[in-house]
């Protein structure tokens, strides 16, 4: 697939490019700041963008803002954000209003090459990929008005894996339960979070979104 990499650390940028090339992807541009990223996306319309959060000039959240811009302007371009630490607000902002083609990984995850490539593929195929660590932190956030408190521990496990973008089959395998019980858990989650079964919207993603908005 056609990829654009945005990362200000030369070391990591080169590493990412080599890794993607090794895997047979076509890296059409690699840039080191958000403005260059937006220009490149506008020019080349890649399949997927891999971007760092902290980039020049201010090293705050330039990459993330660029990611949100890309989601708004070119929804067909998948975005995988790499962050140096878990920042709930970022993750929430990023996937609100989107129904896939988006991922949010901790940078450390890139070192787990298999997981990173897996996430990249999922995002490019229209799915979602959230770092287990991010999801864990989001799930540990509890407020009184939080409908998630009504979930059983098992349902939480299922939602956690769902939020990472895994399919029911994968979730069943990971939790050593049958696919049918996974589906039962999923439906219980949708009920508890008050998600009606409407077409055109992935209830799986909305479940996480609804949660993130609390």
């Amino acid at each position: 697939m056609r990829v654009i990499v945005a990362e200000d650390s030369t070391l990591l940028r080169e590493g990412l490019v080599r890794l993607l090339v090794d895997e047979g992807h076509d890296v059409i541009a690699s840039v080191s700041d958000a403005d260059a990223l937006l220009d490149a996306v506008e020019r080349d319309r890649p399949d997927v963008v891999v971007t760092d959060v902290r980039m020049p000039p201010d090293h705050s959240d330039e990459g993330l803002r660029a990611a949100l811009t890309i989601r708004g302007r070119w929804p067909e371009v998948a975005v995988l954000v790499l962050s140096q630490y878990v920042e709930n607000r970022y993750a929430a902002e990023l996937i609100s209003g989107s129904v896939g083609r988006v991922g949010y990984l901790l940078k450390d995850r890139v070192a787990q090459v298999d997981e990173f490539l897996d996430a990249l593929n999922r995002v490019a195929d229209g799915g979602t990929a959230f770092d287990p660590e991010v999801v864990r932190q989001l799930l540990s956030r509890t407020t009184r008005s939080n409908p998630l408190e009504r979930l059983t521990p098992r349902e939480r496990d299922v939602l956690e894996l769902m939020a990472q973008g895994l399919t029911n089959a994968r979730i069943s395998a990971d939790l050593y339960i049958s696919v049918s019980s996974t589906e039962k858990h999923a439906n219980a989650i949708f009920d508890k979070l008050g998600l009606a079964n409407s077409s055109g919207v992935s209830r799986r993603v909305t479940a996480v979104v609804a949660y993130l908005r609390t």
Partner: protein
Amino acid sequence: MLVNRVVYPPDLADRSAISPLLRRWLGALAGVLLGTVTAVSELLFSVLALLALGLARILGRRGRLLQSAVAETALALSELEIRRIARFHGRLHTDVLTPRRCRLYLGLRWSIGLLGIGVVLLLTLCLLVAGSMVSAWGLNGGWGLIENSDRVDSGLVAVAALPGILLIFVAVVGVAGVGSLDHWFVIHVLGRQSDRLLHQRVAELTSSRDHVVDAINDERRRIERDLHDGVQQQLVALGMLIGRARRADKPDKMHDLLAQAHIASQGAISELREVANRVYPIALDQSGLHAAIETMAQRASVPIRITYELTERLRPAVETVIYFVVSEAVTNATKHAFPQLVEVTVTHQRFDRVLATITDDGPGGADPSGTGLSGLARRVAALDGTLTVHSPVGGPTVVTASVPCG
């Protein structure tokens, strides 16, 4: 050494307290005598300073040297006075001296010196008269102080005794009085009264406490950035290389990637060492400020000339703050000014302070309110020091920190 001395009978204890009183009085006398000597130099200085400053005004730009000479002399003389008064007439706190206040002080203080000499002369005269009268009366001789003298008889001694004793007492107390007056005056003009001092100190401490917390937060933020943007990147890159090596299908490629990973691991290790050193330089504890600054200079990417004039070690807190001022200023200079040379000077300053100056020949225009510099200013303020940044457009940039050693 504490010894429980029981003095019996009790009135002996009162009598034994006389000797420190006498010592204190003798100290005050020495102080007043010295003060009369300094008064002469102050009077001389005040007259010359008036002339010099008038001349400097006429000379315009060339008069700057004269002005600074006057200022230096005023500071030096005032410092001398403060030392003398603190030594003989009691402890005192002074603000940071300014040449203007010092000139005002010196211009008025000589009068106290003259009062002192007056009192001392009065005392001397009284004692001489009394001594000679008593000796004349005792030896039944003539009294040489008055021409065509009469003999000193008991009647004359009896009449003169009361006013004589009163005069001597007034002169004795006057010596201590002049000392107190000297003490009060220097505090009034150059120093701070203790209650005002206390209020001011509390206000300073409150604000510097906040500043310390802010400064610590700034540093923590910097450390976080150092770890995430430096060490973490290196380790992730290393992990990626190993991951790619594991996925490689050809042995050659795998070996190549592992070799790269090995190099990357060295990079990560040295990056970690750098970060740890930026957090706290171990050299500072082990071999002191001078060595730490030299080590830092060796690692810097620009030439640094160090002038280090301190002979003894400073308090750890002072050494640390001076080190960070120097290191941050050098880092800023190399990052923004691309200088040919950075000069670092660490010297003693008046009133037991240490002065660090960092000068770079870059283009200037540094922003003192930038995070690095303002964080430094807060750290320095926490030790009652001052940090100034002088960076006119066109350079040079001079960062100066002055910190009390005590």
